């Protein structure tokens, strides 16, 4: 849980945002993937590369997993994974 540790990185918010905090249709720029190497590599292959824009799409009934639009495709992630993708 390094989310709360990284405070004051953005001028707008007082702490780093992650993917789960995006509202439907809202976009953000990915800063880093706070995940084990294997998962991070796989996500990067699917388009989650730092510096790229990520937009929140629809979700499964109940709100989890959620679909994110990134680099021309749509990828579904569970909440616990999305939480580890930190936005700028």
């Amino acid at each position, binding site marked *: 849980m390094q989310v709360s540790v990284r405070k004051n990185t953005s001028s707008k918010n007082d702490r780093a945002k992650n993917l789960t905090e995006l509202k439907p249709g809202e976009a953000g720029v990915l800063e880093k993937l706070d995940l084990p190497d294997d998962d991070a590599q796989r996500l990067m292959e*699917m388009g989650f590369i730092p*510096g790229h824009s990520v937009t929140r799409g*629809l979700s*499964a009934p*109940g709100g989890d*997993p959620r*679909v994110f639009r990134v680099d021309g*495709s749509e990828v*579904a*992630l569970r909440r616990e994974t999305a939480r580890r993708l930190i936005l700028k």
Partner: protein
Amino acid sequence: MGDCHGCPANSIATLPPPPGFGAPPRRHIVAIVGPPNSGKSTLFNRLTGLRQKVANFPGVTVEHRMGRVKLEQGRDVYVVDLPGVYSLTPRTEDERVTHDVLSGKMKDIPRPDAVLLILDSTNLSRHLVLAAPVLSLGLPTLVILNMADDLKSRGGELNVPELAMQLGSPVALISAAKGIGTEKIFQFLSGATLGAAPTAPLIQLPVIQDIPKCRAWATTIGNKTGYHAPAPPLWTRRLDAFFLHPVAGPLVFLFVVLAVFQTIFKGAKPLMDAIDEAIKHSGHWLGQLLPNEALRSLVVDGIWKGVGSVVIFLPQILLLFLFIGVLEDSGYLARAALIADRTMARFGLQGKSFIPLLSAYACAVPAIMATRTIESKRDRIATILIAPFMTCSARLPVYILIIGAFIPDRNLVGGFLGMQAAAMLGLYILGFVAAMLTARLLKSTVLKSRRSSFMLEMPPYRWPTVRSLALRLVDRSKVFLYRAGTVILGVAIAIWVLSNLPLNHGKPPAIEHSITAGIGHLVEPAIKPLGFNWKIGIGLITSLAARETMVSSLGTIYGIEGDEHSPGLQQALRQDLTLGGAVGLLVFFAFAMQCMSTTAVVRRETGGWFWPAVQFAYMTGLAYVCAFIANRIVTYWS
């Protein structure tokens, strides 16, 4: 268009010797590589048509499929369809297979002579990331940009000759689904399989392990070649707003499932009746041709009735495969996996397990192979172990026979769902529940692991192509009829022979005194508590080879017993089995592990006999206990 830019000038080299002269010609092998959802299978089907090796599994390319492409001048090239991968770093089984084939480490497949790298042109920048490691293999490569029609209709642009220059490989812009531009592929296959080396790319390839660098490289190439990404797929967004709607989504899913069952039951009926008639008439006609009484009995009662009673279920099995094919090819299956993820998580699995489990409704063998996309080893073994609980198409004949004989044909729910279809649905649910509870049991004990991650790409919705669906059905028919013609035929003959021996004064005995009956009576004590008689016992023994053999065995046994006015198999069963026994039999078939092919695949995929043995003991034990309970309950109530 100068699509063959960068084609080596010496591409027309010596032809291999014609077959039959001197040394056998070396097989030329070309591998199809591409990310998931780039249209590999569509291209493979387009290139090979019916000249595919009979694969034991439909659709999803998990193991390599091999097919022959006919070129001009009477030459052939073999194409291998490899699993969809995002990179060549071997992390999942799929990537390992692809990596091993391309680097020549795969047993039985020599290193490919060339590569067809297929990418989605509507998502080129991201898909080009795979081009870096593939091009660095140094094999002659044709870069195929698929979905050209989508790219155009959604306003995307690309300079193809420039891309070929940049990559140092020929590039073809095609639509595999519509067959546009595929002649470029045949040209490439004619030239490149003859041992030509690719030219060096204009642009330095990036370090292939570094994904951000590869991605930046892809962007540079995209910019240099005037790539304009097309507008987002509008229809996919609209359809998702409906299919992933919090309320409508699950309802649609439920409706689809119910419609499938109803259609399988009602829609296939006319076709089945037609086949039934054809088998009866041809059997009668065959009987008249054969003068010898024993021979006639063997051919008509043993073979024709035995094998025919299984062949009759072909329409239903094809309908089921058609439905699964449509769901898969249209892209709906990925949404279903998304919707199912939370439920699957409750049982310790994840949404990705849902896709193999759904295809296990057709057959467990391809389903078990499809588990290779699951990254977590423990999740994968759990999915393999529960897959045979899903009601595969081989159970269908048995279910239909027993349900048709014992469940009245009445309408429920305002005529939408018949009582027989409801009983069938109940059996499907029973299998599903057993699978889920078993998964829970496994995942909370021997296969315990931390909650695994779920990452699944949602492909755009596409119209399934008639060609791909038709090929699936042809493929499935071949597998089914092959089995009917080998295993089931063999068992039918064996049952007939054993039912007509020992000879009594040169005449076959009454069925009660045959060897078959002897064997049946031997096992009868063990199955009596379940409400089964010795004839069912024989059916159960033969169903160990393949579930549907049960029907042909009963067909042969009852066929022999019947006189001129021989009642149908269903009628015969009604007189011979109590309702409790019938329900017990259905429950037994829902749970028991009676399939040699599945056991063989589980052994191969788990790398030993341990898991298949556990699976067999667990499933068959569960089947026995539950059939016993079901028989007792039903007998008590009726």
